[in-house]
C-alpha cells in the first residue's frame, strides 16, 4: 500500500522521493541539441518561467534545468500530458530544441512513523514534555476511546498527572491528541522485593481528545522486520488479543513497531521474569524478554510503548503486550503481557 500526495493531502510532512532531476528517465522524444550559446544562456530564465507554468498542469511530475545536457527536462505521468506541456512552453516562447519531455513514475510522499498521522494508529511517535515515545495501540475502555503507552511515558511513572500528548510533536501540531487518565501507583510489599516499587505492567492509558481521530485495531507497518526502515508501507490489523498469557513458551516469535527502530521481530527467551529497571528502585513483575537469534537490534530510545504482537496470518495480528525497555545495545527488549496490562488498567478492547 502506498500513499499518494493526493490521498494524504497535507497530513504527511515527509521526505519526497526525488532523484528524478539527476537521473532523468528516457525522454519520449530525443533531446535536441541547443546550437546557440544564446539559447543556453536563456535556459535559467526559461526554467524559472516554465517551472511555474508546467507544474501547475495536471499529471506533471517534475521540472528540471538539466545542466549536463543543456536543456530543460519535464516529467509527466503519461503521454497524454505531453501535449499540454508543449503548448504551455510554446506560449512562453521556449523553442522545442530547448527542452525534452519524459514520461516518468509519479512521485510519492513517504510517510514515516515519526510523521503526523490522523487518524492515529499504533506504532507512531508521540510527544510529551521533553520526551518521545511510541503510541502502543488504540483501545476502548468501556466507551472511552483511548491509547495505551508506557507508564514511564507520562509525567511521572505511576500516578496520574494528566499528561498531555502531541503527535508527532507539539511543534509540528500543537493539538493535544490525548490526556493521561489512568496510571496505577507502584506498590510496595507483597510480591515486591524489599526496597523496591513494583507493578505488573509498565502501562498507562490516555483518553483521546474528541477532535482527534483514531483507528482501533490498526498498527502501522513498515517494509519489513528488522530492516531498520521507519517508512510506513501498510497496516497491521489487530484481529485478536491474548488476554490470558503471562508466561509465553520459549521461542515464541513476537513483533513490535516503534518510532525509532520500526518493525522488529524476535523470539521470547524468558517469560514471567521480574526485572529491575536500571538506575531506579522500580521492579516490573512477570515480564517477558525477547531477542533475535542473529543478534539484530530490536529496540532503541523512543520505542517505549510499542505494541507487541504475534502475526497470525498475512497482516492480521494478535496483540500480546507492550514494550517498555531493553538492554543498552538494543538486542534485547522487554514487554509487559497484555494480561498484566488489563489486570492493572481494566478490560481493553483493541481489535478492529
Amino acid at each position, binding site marked *: 500500500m502506498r500513499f499518494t500526495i493526493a490521498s494524504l493531502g497535507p497530513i504527511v510532512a515527509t521526505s519526497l522521493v526525488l532523484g528524478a532531476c539527476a537521473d532523468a528517465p528516457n525522454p519520449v522524444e530525443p533531446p535536441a541539441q541547443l546550437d546557440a550559446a544564446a539559447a543556453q544562456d536563456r535556459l535559467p530564465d526559461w526554467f524559472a518561467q516554465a517551472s511555474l507554468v508546467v507544474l501547475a498542469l495536471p499529471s506533471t511530475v517534475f521540472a528540471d534545468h538539466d545542466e549536463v545536457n543543456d536543456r530543460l527536462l519535464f516529467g509527466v505521468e503519461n503521454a497524454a500530458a505531453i501535449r499540454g506541456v508543449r503548448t504551455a512552453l510554446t506560449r512562453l516562447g521556449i523553442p522545442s530544441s530547448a527542452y525534452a519531455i519524459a514520461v516518468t513514475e509519479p512521485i510519492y510522499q513517504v510517510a514515516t512513523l515519526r510523521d503526523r498521522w490522523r487518524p492515529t494508529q499504533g506504532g507512531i511517535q508521540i510527544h510529551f514534555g*521533553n*520526551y*518521545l*515515545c511510541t503510541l502502543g495501540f488504540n483501545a476502548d475502555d468501556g466507551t472511552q476511546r483511548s491509547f495505551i503507552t*508506557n507508564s*514511564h*511515558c507520562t509525567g511521572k511513572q505511576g500516578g496520574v498527572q494528566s499528561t498531555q500528548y502531541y503527535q508527532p510533536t507539539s511543534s509540528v501540531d500543537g493539538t493535544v491528541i490525548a490526556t493521561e487518565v489512568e496510571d496505577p501507583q507502584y506498590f510496595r510489599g507483597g510480591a515486591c522485593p524489599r526496597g523496591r516499587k513494583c507493578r505488573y505492567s*509498565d502501562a498507562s492509558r490516555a483518553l483521546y481528545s474528541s477532535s482527534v481521530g483514531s483507528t482501533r485495531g490498526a498498527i502501522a507497518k513498515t517494509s519489513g522486520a528488522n530492516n531498520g526502515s521507519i517508512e510506513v508501507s501498510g497496516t497491521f490489523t489487530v484481529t485478536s488479543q491474548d488476554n490470558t498469557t503471562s508466561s509465553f513458551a520459549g521461542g515464541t516469535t513476537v513483533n513490535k513497531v*516503534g518510532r*525509532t527502530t520500526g518493525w522488529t521481530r524476535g523470539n521470547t527467551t524468558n517469560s514471567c521474569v521480574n*526485572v*529491575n*529497571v*536500571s*538506575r531506579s528502585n522500580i521492579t516490573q513483575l512477570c515480564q517477558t524478554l525477547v531477542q533475535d537469534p542473529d543478534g539484530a537490534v530490536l*529496540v*532503541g*530510545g*523512543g*520505542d*517505549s510503548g*510499542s505494541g507487541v504482537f504475534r502475526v497470525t496470518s498475512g497482516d492480521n495480528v494478535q496483540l500480546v503486550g507492550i*514494550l*517498555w*525497555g*531493553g*538492554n*543498552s*545495545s538494543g538486542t534485547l*527488549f*522487554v514487554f509487559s503481557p497484555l494480561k498484566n496490562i488489563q489486570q492493572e488498567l481494566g478490560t481493553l478492547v483493541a481489535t478492529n
Partner: protein
Amino acid sequence: MPFSTAVTLALLAAACAADWPEHAADARAADLAERTMTASVPDSVFLRLIVPGEVRAGQPVPLGLRIEHRGTRPLDLYLRGRAITVDIEVARADGEVVWRRLEGQIIPAILHIRTLAPGERLEVDVEWDQRTTGGAPVAPGAYVARALLLAEGDPWATEWVGFRIGG
C-alpha cells in the same frame, strides 16, 4: 583522530608504563575498536572522559563524562532514558573488557530531548569499584576506559583513556 588510533594511543600510553611491546598494543587496539557499534557525534559536541592517571588498588575509580556544545546555536540532543544514560567500558591492556557499567541492565526505551545552549556543558560522574562485571577484584596494572552516551541510534563514544591501578 580515528577511533582505532585513539585506542592505540591510550594503550600505548599504558604499554609504556608497563613495558609492553608496541605491536601487541596495536593488535589489542584493533580488537577493542571492533567491539561496539558507535555513532558519529555532531561536530559541535565534544565528549571527553576524565580519569585520573593512577588510582590506588581497591580505591573507587572516578570517571567523569563531559559533554560540551561548542556551537553557536542551541542544539537538541536525543538521548535514551528519562535521565542521561551513560555506559562505561573498562578494559585490560590485553583487550579484555573487564567491566561494563550497564551490563545486563534493562533501560527504559524512552527518548529524552535535551537542548544544549551554546557553550553549555553536561557532566556525569560515576565510579568504578575496581571489580569485574562478575564482581571479582581486578589486578593492579594498566587499563583503558571509555564512556558511551546512549542516544537515539548507536551510542556516542569517547576516546579510550588509559590509566593505571597501582599496587
